[in-house]
């Protein structure tokens, strides 16, 4: 399943569906809204481009890391501290493939998929500048 959605993700269901006869390892990446002294986080996406790009990343990950299954669900909208932002579930025959495939996917998403985050802070809001610094105030 590849999706961008406002709803939360049933991770247990994704894991259950990822299990196939040849599956020996499942790696779950769960990106969460961290408490960087923020009130909430707001996410937006260029969905018409982001979903095909996520599908392309999943296809490439399957091919290059010999994965049996890939699920990527990225949430948008307003999220509170502790909520899931991004869930990646990969299934493979062996742990090395699963770990490496999961890492490949998250790095590819951060590098190029058109999704943005805004941190809603107590003293104002700020757009997260790519894969760089997070947190309200300075020096974080």
């Amino acid at each position, binding site marked *: 399943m590849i999706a961008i959605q406002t709803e939360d993700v049933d991770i247990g269901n994704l894991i259950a569906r990822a299990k196939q006869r040849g599956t020996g390892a499942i790696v779950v990446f769960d990106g969460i809204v961290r408490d960087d002294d923020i009130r909430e986080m707001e996410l937006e996406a*260029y969905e*018409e481009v982001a979903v095909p790009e996520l599908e392309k990343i999943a296809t490439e990950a399957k091919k290059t890391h010999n994965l049996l299954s890939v699920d990527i669900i*990225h949430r948008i909208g307003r999220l509170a501290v502790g909520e899931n932002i*991004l869930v990646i579930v990969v299934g493979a025959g062996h742990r090395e493939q699963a770990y490496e495939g999961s890492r490949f996917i998250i790095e590819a998403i951060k590098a190029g998929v058109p999704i*943005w985050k805004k941190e809603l802070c107590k003293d104002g809001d700020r757009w997260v500048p*790519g894969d760089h610094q997070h947190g309200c105030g300075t020096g974080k």
Partner: protein
Amino acid sequence: MTVKIRFFARFRELLGTDIVVEVPKNKGLLDLVKETAEKNKEGYDAIFDEKGAFREFVILMQNGKRLETSDAPKIMVADGDEIAVFPPVAGG
């Protein structure tokens, strides 16, 4: 002909999005985005430098395909095009 311009993230907040504009034939992409952004100085300054070129970090798409911003002056838009302009991505 009509072209849709979509701004995202900070650019959207400053300039709006899903802006449909009527443009003449042989309209250049750079001029189109400039003219659309000129309605808000802060929005314009976020996208363009003092020489009127796209800032280094700005990402451009034409119908979902990325373009080099340096090519924008010579790229013409076509009827029904969707142009997207956005800052660096920050998903994940």
